[in-house]
Protein backbone atom coordinates (compact mmCIF):
# COMPACT_ATOMS: atom_id res chain seq x y z
CA UNK A 1 0.00 0.00 0.00
CA UNK A 2 1.44 3.34 -0.97
CA UNK A 3 1.13 6.07 1.65
CA UNK A 4 -2.04 8.17 1.55
CA UNK A 5 -0.07 11.28 0.76
CA UNK A 6 3.53 11.33 -0.32
CA UNK A 7 5.48 14.54 -0.81
CA UNK A 8 8.99 14.66 -2.17
CA UNK A 9 11.04 17.86 -2.11
CA UNK A 10 7.83 19.74 -2.81
CA UNK A 11 8.52 23.39 -3.49
CA UNK A 12 6.21 26.22 -4.47
CA UNK A 13 7.50 29.70 -5.11
CA UNK A 14 5.35 32.70 -5.80
CA UNK A 15 7.03 35.90 -6.94
CA UNK A 16 8.87 37.09 -3.83
CA UNK A 17 7.54 34.35 -1.55
CA UNK A 18 8.45 30.72 -1.02
CA UNK A 19 5.24 29.08 0.10
CA UNK A 20 6.62 25.55 0.32
CA UNK A 21 10.30 24.79 0.66
CA UNK A 22 11.55 21.28 -0.13
CA UNK A 23 8.79 19.54 1.80
CA UNK A 24 9.33 15.77 2.02
CA UNK A 25 6.80 13.76 3.98
CA UNK A 26 4.64 10.63 3.96
CA UNK A 27 1.23 10.77 5.57
CA UNK A 28 -0.83 7.73 6.57
CA UNK A 29 -4.65 7.64 6.89
CA UNK A 30 -6.35 9.02 9.98
CA UNK A 31 -7.35 12.49 11.06
CA UNK A 32 -4.34 14.58 10.26
CA UNK A 33 -3.91 18.11 11.53
CA UNK A 34 -1.91 20.47 9.36
CA UNK A 35 -0.90 23.34 11.60
CA UNK A 36 1.08 26.48 11.09
CA UNK A 37 0.60 30.18 11.37
CA UNK A 38 -1.11 32.22 8.68
CA UNK A 39 0.90 32.08 5.51
CA UNK A 40 2.89 29.01 6.58
CA UNK A 41 1.93 27.24 3.36
CA UNK A 42 -1.05 25.16 4.49
CA UNK A 43 -3.49 26.28 1.81
CA UNK A 44 -0.80 26.02 -0.85
CA UNK A 45 -0.13 22.42 0.13
CA UNK A 46 -3.83 21.54 -0.07
CA UNK A 47 -4.13 23.20 -3.47
CA UNK A 48 -1.15 21.28 -4.81
CA UNK A 49 -2.63 18.00 -3.54
CA UNK A 50 -5.78 18.85 -5.50
CA UNK A 51 -3.95 19.91 -8.62
CA UNK A 52 -5.40 23.42 -8.28
CA UNK A 53 -1.87 24.78 -8.27
CA UNK A 54 1.22 23.24 -9.83
CA UNK A 55 4.35 22.94 -7.69
CA UNK A 56 7.47 24.80 -8.79
CA UNK A 57 9.48 21.61 -8.25
CA UNK A 58 9.22 18.30 -6.45
CA UNK A 59 6.38 15.82 -6.56
CA UNK A 60 3.21 15.09 -4.65
CA UNK A 61 1.26 11.84 -4.81
CA UNK A 62 -2.10 10.90 -3.35
CA UNK A 63 -2.81 7.19 -2.95
CA UNK A 64 0.31 6.49 -4.93
CA UNK A 65 -0.70 8.57 -7.95
CA UNK A 66 0.97 11.73 -9.11
CA UNK A 67 -1.34 14.71 -8.59
CA UNK A 68 -0.25 16.48 -11.74
CA UNK A 69 -0.47 13.56 -14.14
CA UNK A 70 -3.51 11.75 -12.75
CA UNK A 71 -5.41 14.67 -11.28
CA UNK A 72 -8.86 13.91 -12.64
CA UNK A 73 -8.63 10.29 -11.48
CA UNK A 74 -7.46 11.17 -7.97
CA UNK A 75 -9.97 13.95 -7.56
CA UNK A 76 -12.83 11.46 -7.90
CA UNK A 77 -11.67 10.14 -4.54
CA UNK A 78 -10.76 13.40 -2.85
CA UNK A 79 -13.07 16.00 -1.32
CA UNK A 80 -12.12 19.61 -0.75
CA UNK A 81 -13.64 22.20 1.53
CA UNK A 82 -12.07 25.56 0.67
CA UNK A 83 -11.33 28.15 3.31
CA UNK A 84 -13.35 30.99 1.86
CA UNK A 85 -16.98 31.22 0.91
CA UNK A 86 -17.50 29.30 -2.33
CA UNK A 87 -21.26 28.99 -2.79
CA UNK A 88 -23.42 30.74 -5.38
CA UNK A 89 -26.36 32.31 -3.52
CA UNK A 90 -29.03 31.83 -6.18
CA UNK A 91 -29.35 28.06 -5.95
CA UNK A 92 -30.51 25.58 -3.35
CA UNK A 93 -28.13 23.39 -1.35
CA UNK A 94 -29.72 20.29 -2.85
CA UNK A 95 -29.37 21.50 -6.41
CA UNK A 96 -25.77 22.60 -5.95
CA UNK A 97 -24.52 19.55 -4.07
CA UNK A 98 -26.25 17.12 -6.46
CA UNK A 99 -24.68 18.92 -9.41
CA UNK A 100 -21.21 18.88 -7.86
CA UNK A 101 -21.62 15.16 -7.06
CA UNK A 102 -22.11 14.50 -10.76
CA UNK A 103 -19.05 16.58 -11.59
CA UNK A 104 -17.18 14.26 -9.23
CA UNK A 105 -18.24 11.37 -11.45
CA UNK A 106 -21.40 10.06 -9.78
CA UNK A 107 -24.37 9.03 -11.96
CA UNK A 108 -27.39 11.34 -11.65
CA UNK A 109 -29.52 9.04 -9.49
CA UNK A 110 -26.70 8.21 -7.11
CA UNK A 111 -25.83 11.92 -6.94
CA UNK A 112 -29.35 12.79 -5.75
CA UNK A 113 -29.42 9.98 -3.18
CA UNK A 114 -26.01 10.84 -1.81
CA UNK A 115 -26.94 14.53 -1.65
CA UNK A 116 -29.94 13.86 0.56
CA UNK A 117 -27.84 11.55 2.70
CA UNK A 118 -24.89 13.87 3.14
CA UNK A 119 -26.97 17.00 3.77
CA UNK A 120 -28.77 15.11 6.51
CA UNK A 121 -25.41 14.05 7.88
CA UNK A 122 -24.15 17.62 8.16
CA UNK A 123 -27.42 18.66 9.78
CA UNK A 124 -29.32 20.43 7.02
CA UNK A 125 -32.94 19.40 6.73
CA UNK A 126 -35.87 21.38 5.32
CA UNK A 127 -33.63 24.37 4.63
CA UNK A 128 -31.80 22.39 1.99
CA UNK A 129 -34.53 23.38 -0.46
CA UNK A 130 -34.02 27.09 0.22
CA UNK A 131 -31.67 29.37 -1.67
CA UNK A 132 -28.13 29.33 -0.28
CA UNK A 133 -28.11 33.14 -0.23
CA UNK A 134 -30.36 33.09 2.83
CA UNK A 135 -28.13 30.75 4.85
CA UNK A 136 -26.20 31.62 8.00
CA UNK A 137 -22.42 31.24 8.05
CA UNK A 138 -22.77 27.97 9.94
CA UNK A 139 -25.15 26.54 7.36
CA UNK A 140 -22.86 27.60 4.53
CA UNK A 141 -19.94 25.83 6.18
CA UNK A 142 -22.10 22.71 6.41
CA UNK A 143 -22.95 22.92 2.71
CA UNK A 144 -19.25 23.30 1.94
CA UNK A 145 -18.51 20.19 3.99
CA UNK A 146 -21.41 18.33 2.35
CA UNK A 147 -20.17 19.06 -1.18
CA UNK A 148 -16.71 17.86 -0.15
CA UNK A 149 -17.95 14.45 0.97
CA UNK A 150 -20.96 13.86 -1.28
CA UNK A 151 -18.96 11.53 -3.53
CA UNK A 152 -17.73 9.46 -0.55
CA UNK A 153 -14.07 10.41 -0.94
CA UNK A 154 -11.21 8.40 0.52
CA UNK A 155 -9.51 11.64 1.53
CA UNK A 156 -11.06 14.90 2.71
CA UNK A 157 -9.05 18.11 2.62
CA UNK A 158 -10.52 20.74 4.93
CA UNK A 159 -9.08 24.24 4.91
CA UNK A 160 -9.88 26.08 8.16
CA UNK A 161 -13.28 24.39 8.53
CA UNK A 162 -14.26 26.44 11.60
CA UNK A 163 -13.53 29.77 9.94
CA UNK A 164 -16.10 32.42 10.81
CA UNK A 165 -18.13 30.17 13.13
CA UNK A 166 -19.30 31.07 16.61
CA UNK A 167 -18.16 28.85 19.51
CA UNK A 168 -21.19 26.55 19.28
CA UNK A 169 -20.74 26.29 15.52
CA UNK A 170 -17.07 25.44 15.97
CA UNK A 171 -17.95 22.66 18.39
CA UNK A 172 -20.44 21.18 15.93
CA UNK A 173 -18.06 21.41 13.00
CA UNK A 174 -15.27 19.74 14.96
CA UNK A 175 -17.67 16.99 16.01
CA UNK A 176 -18.61 16.47 12.36
CA UNK A 177 -14.95 16.24 11.40
CA UNK A 178 -14.31 13.77 14.20
CA UNK A 179 -17.27 11.57 13.23
CA UNK A 180 -16.30 11.69 9.57
CA UNK A 181 -12.79 10.52 10.34
CA UNK A 182 -13.55 7.99 13.07
CA UNK A 183 -16.88 6.46 12.14
CA UNK A 184 -16.83 6.65 8.37
CA UNK A 185 -13.22 5.74 7.87
CA UNK A 186 -12.50 8.70 5.62
CA UNK A 187 -9.00 10.09 5.95
CA UNK A 188 -9.18 13.78 6.84
CA UNK A 189 -6.48 16.39 6.48
CA UNK A 190 -7.50 19.49 8.45
CA UNK A 191 -5.52 22.68 7.94
CA UNK A 192 -5.84 25.17 10.77
CA UNK A 193 -3.95 27.86 12.59
CA UNK A 194 -5.95 27.10 15.73
CA UNK A 195 -3.95 24.47 17.60
CA UNK A 196 -6.48 24.23 20.37
CA UNK A 197 -9.07 22.94 17.92
CA UNK A 198 -6.76 20.70 15.96
CA UNK A 199 -5.43 18.86 18.97
CA UNK A 200 -8.95 17.88 19.97
CA UNK A 201 -9.80 16.03 16.78
CA UNK A 202 -6.55 14.80 15.24
CA UNK A 203 -4.49 11.72 15.81
CA UNK A 204 -1.59 12.84 13.67
CA UNK A 205 -0.05 16.25 13.41
CA UNK A 206 2.00 17.93 10.72
CA UNK A 207 3.45 21.28 11.72
CA UNK A 208 4.84 23.53 9.03
CA UNK A 209 6.38 26.95 9.25
CA UNK A 210 7.41 29.20 6.38
CA UNK A 211 6.92 26.28 4.00
CA UNK A 212 9.26 23.98 5.92
CA UNK A 213 8.35 20.92 7.92
CA UNK A 214 8.72 21.54 11.64
CA UNK A 215 7.56 18.16 12.74
CA UNK A 216 5.21 15.33 11.79
CA UNK A 217 4.22 12.80 14.39
CA UNK A 218 1.40 11.17 16.27
CA UNK A 219 -0.40 13.66 18.44
CA UNK A 220 0.28 11.60 21.58
CA UNK A 221 4.03 11.67 21.08
CA UNK A 222 3.84 15.35 20.32
CA UNK A 223 2.49 16.04 23.76
CA UNK A 224 3.88 13.20 25.86
CA UNK A 225 7.49 13.51 24.95
CA UNK A 226 7.47 17.14 25.83
CA UNK A 227 5.50 16.65 29.03
CA UNK A 228 6.77 17.41 32.51
CA UNK A 229 6.15 16.04 35.94
CA UNK A 230 5.42 18.71 38.50
CA UNK A 231 6.60 17.72 41.98
CA UNK A 232 5.74 19.77 45.04
CA UNK A 233 7.30 19.15 48.46
CA UNK A 234 6.79 21.13 51.68
CA UNK A 235 10.53 21.29 52.24
CA UNK A 236 13.77 19.83 50.94
CA UNK A 237 13.23 20.90 47.37
CA UNK A 238 16.91 21.27 46.60
CA UNK A 239 17.83 17.95 48.19
CA UNK A 240 15.22 16.24 46.08
CA UNK A 241 16.46 18.01 42.97
CA UNK A 242 20.00 16.84 43.65
CA UNK A 243 18.81 13.27 44.19
CA UNK A 244 16.85 13.29 40.95
CA UNK A 245 19.71 14.75 38.95
CA UNK A 246 21.94 12.05 40.42
CA UNK A 247 19.49 9.51 38.94
CA UNK A 248 19.99 11.10 35.53
CA UNK A 249 16.76 13.11 35.30
CA UNK A 250 16.55 16.62 33.97
CA UNK A 251 15.11 18.84 36.66
CA UNK A 252 14.25 22.51 36.68
CA UNK A 253 13.30 24.37 39.88
CA UNK A 254 10.20 26.50 39.51
CA UNK A 255 9.40 28.40 42.71
CA UNK A 256 8.41 25.80 45.33
CA UNK A 257 7.99 23.26 42.56
CA UNK A 258 10.29 21.03 40.61
CA UNK A 259 9.65 20.43 36.95
CA UNK A 260 10.94 17.03 35.93
CA UNK A 261 11.24 16.33 32.24
CA UNK A 262 9.18 13.35 31.20
CA UNK A 263 10.68 11.22 28.45
CA UNK A 264 9.19 7.89 29.48
CA UNK A 265 7.62 6.15 32.46
CA UNK A 266 10.79 5.97 34.59
CA UNK A 267 10.63 9.39 36.34
CA UNK A 268 7.43 8.40 38.18
CA UNK A 269 9.22 5.64 40.05
CA UNK A 270 12.43 7.60 40.52
CA UNK A 271 10.59 10.57 42.05
CA UNK A 272 8.54 8.30 44.33
CA UNK A 273 11.63 6.44 45.54
CA UNK A 274 13.66 9.64 46.04
CA UNK A 275 10.87 11.24 48.10
CA UNK A 276 10.60 8.13 50.25
CA UNK A 277 14.37 7.83 50.69
CA UNK A 278 14.69 11.46 51.75
CA UNK A 279 11.57 11.28 53.92
CA UNK A 280 10.18 14.51 52.45
CA UNK A 281 6.63 15.76 52.98
CA UNK A 282 5.20 15.32 49.52
CA UNK A 283 2.29 17.56 48.49
CA UNK A 284 1.64 16.34 44.97
CA UNK A 285 3.04 14.73 41.88
CA UNK A 286 1.22 15.95 38.81
CA UNK A 287 1.74 15.10 35.20
CA UNK A 288 1.58 18.25 33.16
CA UNK A 289 1.04 17.60 29.49
CA UNK A 290 2.08 20.49 27.41
CA UNK A 291 -0.62 21.74 25.17
CA UNK A 292 0.53 22.27 21.64
CA UNK A 293 0.47 25.98 22.11
CA UNK A 294 3.12 25.75 24.82
CA UNK A 295 5.09 23.58 22.49
CA UNK A 296 5.19 26.24 19.84
CA UNK A 297 5.63 29.10 22.25
CA UNK A 298 8.63 27.40 23.89
CA UNK A 299 10.47 26.87 20.65
CA UNK A 300 13.99 28.20 21.20
CA UNK A 301 14.14 30.43 18.13
CA UNK A 302 10.73 31.78 19.09
CA UNK A 303 9.80 32.00 15.44
CA UNK A 304 6.33 31.65 14.13
CA UNK A 305 4.08 31.54 17.11
CA UNK A 306 0.76 30.18 15.98
CA UNK A 307 -1.69 32.99 16.05
CA UNK A 308 -4.54 32.69 18.45
CA UNK A 309 -6.26 35.83 17.36
CA UNK A 310 -9.03 35.57 14.85
CA UNK A 311 -8.39 37.80 11.86
CA UNK A 312 -9.26 35.85 8.72
CA UNK A 313 -6.28 34.67 6.77
CA UNK A 314 -5.69 37.05 3.92
CA UNK A 315 -6.68 35.50 0.63
CA UNK A 316 -3.87 34.62 -1.65
Amino acid at each position, binding site marked *: MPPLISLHALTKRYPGVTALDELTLDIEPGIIGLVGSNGAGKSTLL*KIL*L*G*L*TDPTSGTAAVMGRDVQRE*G*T*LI*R*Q*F*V*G*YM*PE*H*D*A*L*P*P*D*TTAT*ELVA*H*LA*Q*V*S*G*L*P*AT*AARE*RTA*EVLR*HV*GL*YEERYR*QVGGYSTGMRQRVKLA*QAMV*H*DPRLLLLDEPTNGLDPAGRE*EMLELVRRTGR*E*FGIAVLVASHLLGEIERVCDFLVAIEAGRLLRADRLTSFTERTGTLTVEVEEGRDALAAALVAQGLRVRPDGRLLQVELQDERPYDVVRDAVVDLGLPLVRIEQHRHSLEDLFRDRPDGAGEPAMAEPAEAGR
Partner: protein
Amino acid sequence: MSEAAGTARTEVANAAAGSIYDLGYQTYDGPRLGRRHAIRALFMYSLRGCFGIGRGGRAKIVPLALAIFALLPAVVAVGVAALVIRVPTGGGGGGGGGPAMPITYGTFFSYIQTIPMLFCAAQAPELVGRDQRYHVLPLYFSRALRRSDYAIAKLASLLVALLAVFLVPEAVIFVGSVLAASDVPTAFFENLPSAPPVLAIGLASAAVLGGIGLAVAAFTPRRAYATAAIIAVFTVPSVVVAIVNRFATGDAGRLVVLLSPGEMLEGLNAFFFGRASANRVLVQADLPGVAYLAAAVITAVGCLLVLLQRYRRIAA
Protein backbone atom coordinates in the same frame (compact mmCIF):
# COMPACT_ATOMS: atom_id res chain seq x y z
CA MET B 1 -30.92 24.90 17.44
CA SER B 2 -34.34 23.38 17.99
CA GLU B 3 -33.60 21.08 15.09
CA ALA B 4 -30.36 19.95 16.66
CA ALA B 5 -32.22 19.20 19.87
CA GLY B 6 -34.82 17.31 17.86
CA THR B 7 -32.19 15.14 16.26
CA ALA B 8 -30.54 14.43 19.55
CA ARG B 9 -33.85 13.19 20.86
CA THR B 10 -34.45 10.99 17.84
CA GLU B 11 -31.01 9.51 18.21
CA VAL B 12 -31.73 8.65 21.81
CA ALA B 13 -35.03 7.10 20.78
CA ASN B 14 -33.31 5.14 18.03
CA ALA B 15 -30.67 3.92 20.40
CA ALA B 16 -33.42 2.66 22.66
CA ALA B 17 -35.10 0.91 19.74
CA GLY B 18 -31.86 -0.69 18.70
CA SER B 19 -30.89 1.97 16.13
CA ILE B 20 -33.20 0.50 13.55
CA TYR B 21 -33.95 3.81 11.91
CA ASP B 22 -30.52 5.34 11.94
CA LEU B 23 -28.76 3.85 8.96
CA GLY B 24 -25.61 5.79 9.77
CA TYR B 25 -23.24 6.84 7.07
CA GLN B 26 -23.60 4.98 3.80
CA THR B 27 -20.47 4.41 1.81
CA TYR B 28 -20.73 4.63 -1.94
CA ASP B 29 -19.58 1.60 -3.88
CA GLY B 30 -21.27 2.44 -7.18
CA PRO B 31 -19.61 3.52 -10.39
CA ARG B 32 -17.47 6.62 -10.68
CA LEU B 33 -17.89 7.71 -14.26
CA GLY B 34 -14.91 10.00 -14.50
CA ARG B 35 -14.03 13.00 -16.58
CA ARG B 36 -16.39 12.62 -19.53
CA HIS B 37 -19.38 12.28 -17.23
CA ALA B 38 -18.18 15.31 -15.25
CA ILE B 39 -17.94 17.40 -18.42
CA ARG B 40 -21.39 16.29 -19.53
CA ALA B 41 -22.87 17.12 -16.12
CA LEU B 42 -21.35 20.61 -16.18
CA PHE B 43 -22.55 21.11 -19.76
CA MET B 44 -26.15 20.17 -18.91
CA TYR B 45 -26.17 22.25 -15.74
CA SER B 46 -24.80 25.25 -17.63
CA LEU B 47 -27.23 24.80 -20.51
CA ARG B 48 -30.13 24.85 -18.06
CA GLY B 49 -28.51 27.86 -16.40
CA CYS B 50 -28.49 29.67 -19.77
CA PHE B 51 -32.28 29.74 -19.55
CA GLY B 52 -32.40 30.31 -15.79
CA ILE B 53 -33.65 26.79 -15.07
CA GLY B 54 -32.71 25.73 -11.56
CA ARG B 55 -32.24 29.33 -10.50
CA GLY B 56 -34.64 31.80 -9.01
CA GLY B 57 -37.55 33.23 -10.98
CA ARG B 58 -35.74 36.44 -11.85
CA ALA B 59 -32.96 34.56 -13.61
CA LYS B 60 -35.49 33.25 -16.13
CA ILE B 61 -36.93 36.60 -17.21
CA VAL B 62 -34.22 37.85 -19.56
CA PRO B 63 -33.37 34.61 -21.42
CA LEU B 64 -37.00 33.60 -21.86
CA ALA B 65 -38.00 37.09 -22.98
CA LEU B 66 -35.23 37.07 -25.58
CA ALA B 67 -36.20 33.62 -26.77
CA ILE B 68 -39.78 34.83 -27.21
CA PHE B 69 -38.65 37.95 -29.07
CA ALA B 70 -36.73 35.68 -31.44
CA LEU B 71 -39.80 33.53 -31.91
CA LEU B 72 -42.31 36.35 -32.46
CA PRO B 73 -41.34 37.36 -36.02
CA ALA B 74 -41.48 33.72 -37.08
CA VAL B 75 -44.88 33.17 -35.51
CA VAL B 76 -46.26 36.38 -37.03
CA ALA B 77 -44.85 35.52 -40.43
CA VAL B 78 -46.34 32.05 -40.35
CA GLY B 79 -49.65 33.41 -39.10
CA VAL B 80 -49.82 36.01 -41.83
CA ALA B 81 -48.88 33.46 -44.45
CA ALA B 82 -51.50 31.02 -43.24
CA LEU B 83 -54.37 33.47 -42.88
CA VAL B 84 -53.91 36.04 -45.60
CA ILE B 85 -51.93 34.72 -48.49
CA ARG B 86 -53.07 31.15 -48.47
CA VAL B 87 -56.29 31.43 -50.51
CA PRO B 88 -55.11 33.10 -53.71
CA THR B 89 -51.91 31.09 -54.09
CA GLY B 90 -53.11 27.83 -52.63
CA GLY B 91 -55.61 26.76 -55.29
CA GLY B 92 -53.50 27.08 -58.40
CA GLY B 93 -51.96 24.14 -60.05
CA GLY B 94 -48.38 23.03 -59.81
CA GLY B 95 -45.83 23.14 -57.03
CA GLY B 96 -46.58 23.11 -53.35
CA GLY B 97 -48.55 26.28 -53.76
CA GLY B 98 -46.33 27.64 -50.99
CA PRO B 99 -47.52 30.97 -49.71
CA ALA B 100 -45.16 33.87 -50.16
CA MET B 101 -43.71 34.18 -46.68
CA PRO B 102 -43.01 37.73 -45.56
CA ILE B 103 -39.78 36.41 -44.03
CA THR B 104 -37.64 33.91 -45.87
CA TYR B 105 -34.96 31.65 -44.45
CA GLY B 106 -32.37 33.84 -46.09
CA THR B 107 -33.58 37.09 -44.55
CA PHE B 108 -34.60 35.77 -41.13
CA PHE B 109 -31.08 36.02 -39.76
CA SER B 110 -30.94 39.76 -40.45
CA TYR B 111 -34.25 40.28 -38.65
CA ILE B 112 -33.24 38.66 -35.37
CA GLN B 113 -29.47 39.09 -35.41
CA THR B 114 -29.48 41.40 -32.40
CA ILE B 115 -31.28 38.84 -30.24
CA PRO B 116 -28.45 36.27 -30.09
CA MET B 117 -26.15 39.20 -29.36
CA LEU B 118 -28.29 40.37 -26.45
CA PHE B 119 -28.62 36.77 -25.29
CA CYS B 120 -24.81 36.54 -25.14
CA ALA B 121 -24.51 39.85 -23.35
CA ALA B 122 -27.03 38.76 -20.75
CA GLN B 123 -26.14 35.10 -20.25
CA ALA B 124 -22.38 34.78 -20.86
CA PRO B 125 -21.58 36.78 -17.67
CA GLU B 126 -24.08 34.60 -15.84
CA LEU B 127 -22.43 31.48 -17.20
CA VAL B 128 -18.82 32.20 -16.27
CA GLY B 129 -18.78 35.38 -14.18
CA ARG B 130 -21.01 33.90 -11.51
CA ASP B 131 -18.53 31.15 -10.67
CA GLN B 132 -15.75 33.73 -10.38
CA ARG B 133 -17.86 36.18 -8.39
CA TYR B 134 -18.77 33.62 -5.75
CA HIS B 135 -15.43 31.72 -5.88
CA VAL B 136 -17.06 28.51 -7.05
CA LEU B 137 -14.14 27.58 -9.34
CA PRO B 138 -12.19 25.75 -6.58
CA LEU B 139 -15.20 23.46 -6.15
CA TYR B 140 -15.07 22.58 -9.86
CA PHE B 141 -11.33 22.35 -10.31
CA SER B 142 -11.07 20.04 -7.29
CA ARG B 143 -13.33 17.53 -9.05
CA ALA B 144 -13.04 15.07 -11.92
CA LEU B 145 -12.42 17.64 -14.66
CA ARG B 146 -9.59 19.79 -15.91
CA ARG B 147 -9.56 23.54 -16.24
CA SER B 148 -9.83 23.28 -20.02
CA ASP B 149 -12.80 20.93 -19.63
CA TYR B 150 -14.58 23.58 -17.62
CA ALA B 151 -14.02 26.18 -20.36
CA ILE B 152 -15.15 23.81 -23.10
CA ALA B 153 -18.28 22.67 -21.26
CA LYS B 154 -19.29 26.29 -20.61
CA LEU B 155 -18.68 27.29 -24.24
CA ALA B 156 -20.57 24.29 -25.57
CA SER B 157 -23.57 25.09 -23.37
CA LEU B 158 -23.73 28.67 -24.62
CA LEU B 159 -23.40 27.51 -28.25
CA VAL B 160 -26.27 25.07 -27.87
CA ALA B 161 -28.41 27.69 -26.14
CA LEU B 162 -27.74 30.19 -28.94
CA LEU B 163 -28.43 27.54 -31.54
CA ALA B 164 -31.78 26.84 -29.88
CA VAL B 165 -32.69 30.53 -29.78
CA PHE B 166 -31.97 30.76 -33.51
CA LEU B 167 -33.18 27.39 -34.79
CA VAL B 168 -36.50 27.12 -32.97
CA PRO B 169 -37.97 30.14 -34.83
CA GLU B 170 -36.52 28.80 -38.09
CA ALA B 171 -38.20 25.48 -37.36
CA VAL B 172 -41.46 27.32 -36.76
CA ILE B 173 -41.12 28.97 -40.16
CA PHE B 174 -40.33 25.61 -41.72
CA VAL B 175 -43.25 23.78 -40.16
CA GLY B 176 -45.53 26.76 -40.70
CA SER B 177 -44.83 27.13 -44.39
CA VAL B 178 -45.07 23.41 -45.00
CA LEU B 179 -48.39 23.07 -43.21
CA ALA B 180 -49.83 26.27 -44.69
CA ALA B 181 -49.27 24.94 -48.18
CA SER B 182 -52.03 23.12 -50.03
CA ASP B 183 -49.73 20.33 -51.06
CA VAL B 184 -47.85 19.45 -47.89
CA PRO B 185 -45.39 16.80 -49.21
CA THR B 186 -44.29 18.98 -52.12
CA ALA B 187 -43.90 22.00 -49.87
CA PHE B 188 -41.77 19.90 -47.54
CA PHE B 189 -39.37 19.01 -50.30
CA GLU B 190 -39.35 22.58 -51.56
CA ASN B 191 -38.40 23.86 -48.13
CA LEU B 192 -35.87 21.15 -47.40
CA PRO B 193 -32.94 22.60 -49.39
CA SER B 194 -33.03 25.66 -47.11
CA ALA B 195 -32.21 23.53 -44.07
CA PRO B 196 -28.42 23.18 -44.61
CA PRO B 197 -27.74 26.93 -44.97
CA VAL B 198 -30.02 27.63 -41.99
CA LEU B 199 -28.06 25.14 -39.89
CA ALA B 200 -24.78 26.54 -41.18
CA ILE B 201 -25.51 30.17 -40.31
CA GLY B 202 -26.99 29.06 -36.99
CA LEU B 203 -23.80 27.21 -36.08
CA ALA B 204 -21.54 29.97 -37.36
CA SER B 205 -23.36 32.75 -35.51
CA ALA B 206 -23.47 30.68 -32.31
CA ALA B 207 -19.74 29.97 -32.57
CA VAL B 208 -18.78 33.57 -33.32
CA LEU B 209 -21.15 35.36 -30.93
CA GLY B 210 -20.92 32.76 -28.18
CA GLY B 211 -17.15 32.59 -28.48
CA ILE B 212 -16.75 36.35 -28.26
CA GLY B 213 -19.29 36.66 -25.48
CA LEU B 214 -17.73 33.99 -23.30
CA ALA B 215 -14.13 35.06 -23.97
CA VAL B 216 -15.00 38.60 -22.86
CA ALA B 217 -17.14 37.54 -19.89
CA ALA B 218 -14.45 35.19 -18.54
CA PHE B 219 -12.22 38.15 -17.74
CA THR B 220 -14.36 39.78 -15.10
CA PRO B 221 -16.47 38.56 -12.20
CA ARG B 222 -18.49 41.77 -12.49
CA ARG B 223 -21.68 41.16 -14.35
CA ALA B 224 -22.38 44.72 -15.43
CA TYR B 225 -18.86 45.24 -16.80
CA ALA B 226 -19.05 42.02 -18.78
CA THR B 227 -22.44 42.83 -20.28
CA ALA B 228 -21.33 46.32 -21.27
CA ALA B 229 -18.08 45.01 -22.75
CA ILE B 230 -19.84 42.35 -24.81
CA ILE B 231 -22.35 44.83 -26.20
CA ALA B 232 -19.47 47.16 -27.03
CA VAL B 233 -17.58 44.42 -28.89
CA PHE B 234 -20.70 43.62 -30.90
CA THR B 235 -21.77 47.17 -31.77
CA VAL B 236 -18.75 49.48 -31.77
CA PRO B 237 -16.92 47.74 -34.64
CA SER B 238 -20.06 47.99 -36.73
CA VAL B 239 -20.08 51.77 -36.33
CA VAL B 240 -16.35 51.98 -36.97
CA VAL B 241 -16.70 49.87 -40.09
CA ALA B 242 -19.46 52.09 -41.43
CA ILE B 243 -17.28 55.18 -40.96
CA VAL B 244 -14.08 53.64 -42.34
CA ASN B 245 -16.01 52.22 -45.24
CA ARG B 246 -17.24 55.64 -46.20
CA PHE B 247 -13.86 57.36 -46.19
CA ALA B 248 -11.22 54.72 -46.78
CA THR B 249 -10.60 53.23 -50.15
CA GLY B 250 -8.59 50.22 -51.27
CA ASP B 251 -8.34 46.75 -49.80
CA ALA B 252 -7.84 47.89 -46.22
CA GLY B 253 -11.10 49.77 -46.33
CA ARG B 254 -12.88 46.73 -47.72
CA LEU B 255 -11.36 44.14 -45.38
CA VAL B 256 -12.24 46.14 -42.28
CA VAL B 257 -15.83 44.82 -42.45
CA LEU B 258 -14.47 41.47 -41.32
CA LEU B 259 -13.62 43.00 -37.94
CA SER B 260 -17.26 43.56 -37.07
CA PRO B 261 -19.05 40.41 -35.89
CA GLY B 262 -22.39 41.74 -37.15
CA GLU B 263 -21.18 42.46 -40.69
CA MET B 264 -19.13 39.29 -40.78
CA LEU B 265 -22.17 37.13 -40.02
CA GLU B 266 -24.37 39.15 -42.37
CA GLY B 267 -21.91 38.47 -45.20
CA LEU B 268 -21.67 34.83 -44.20
CA ASN B 269 -25.45 34.52 -44.24
CA ALA B 270 -25.59 35.88 -47.79
CA PHE B 271 -22.79 33.48 -48.75
CA PHE B 272 -24.56 30.42 -47.31
CA PHE B 273 -27.82 31.28 -49.08
CA GLY B 274 -26.01 32.11 -52.30
CA ARG B 275 -27.49 35.55 -52.67
CA ALA B 276 -26.26 39.12 -52.57
CA SER B 277 -26.61 40.99 -49.32
CA ALA B 278 -28.71 44.12 -49.28
CA ASN B 279 -26.43 45.61 -46.61
CA ARG B 280 -24.88 48.78 -48.08
CA VAL B 281 -21.56 48.35 -46.31
CA LEU B 282 -21.24 44.77 -47.50
CA VAL B 283 -22.13 45.73 -51.06
CA GLN B 284 -19.42 48.34 -50.99
CA ALA B 285 -16.84 45.96 -49.51
CA ASP B 286 -17.64 43.41 -52.21
CA LEU B 287 -15.68 40.60 -50.61
CA PRO B 288 -15.88 36.96 -51.70
CA GLY B 289 -18.04 34.79 -49.45
CA VAL B 290 -15.15 32.62 -48.31
CA ALA B 291 -13.55 35.70 -46.73
CA TYR B 292 -16.47 35.87 -44.29
CA LEU B 293 -16.22 32.14 -43.66
CA ALA B 294 -12.50 32.40 -42.95
CA ALA B 295 -13.05 35.37 -40.63
CA ALA B 296 -15.75 33.47 -38.73
CA VAL B 297 -13.56 30.39 -38.29
CA ILE B 298 -10.60 32.48 -37.14
CA THR B 299 -12.78 34.41 -34.67
CA ALA B 300 -14.34 31.28 -33.20
CA VAL B 301 -11.04 29.42 -32.84
CA GLY B 302 -9.32 32.53 -31.49
CA CYS B 303 -11.97 32.99 -28.84
CA LEU B 304 -11.68 29.35 -27.81
CA LEU B 305 -7.92 29.73 -27.40
CA VAL B 306 -8.33 32.92 -25.37
CA LEU B 307 -10.84 31.16 -23.16
CA LEU B 308 -8.59 28.13 -22.61
CA GLN B 309 -5.65 30.38 -21.82
CA ARG B 310 -7.75 32.38 -19.36
CA TYR B 311 -8.78 29.27 -17.47
CA ARG B 312 -5.27 27.85 -17.46
CA ARG B 313 -4.08 30.96 -15.65
CA ILE B 314 -7.01 31.85 -13.44
CA ALA B 315 -6.38 31.50 -9.70
CA ALA B 316 -8.51 28.96 -7.91
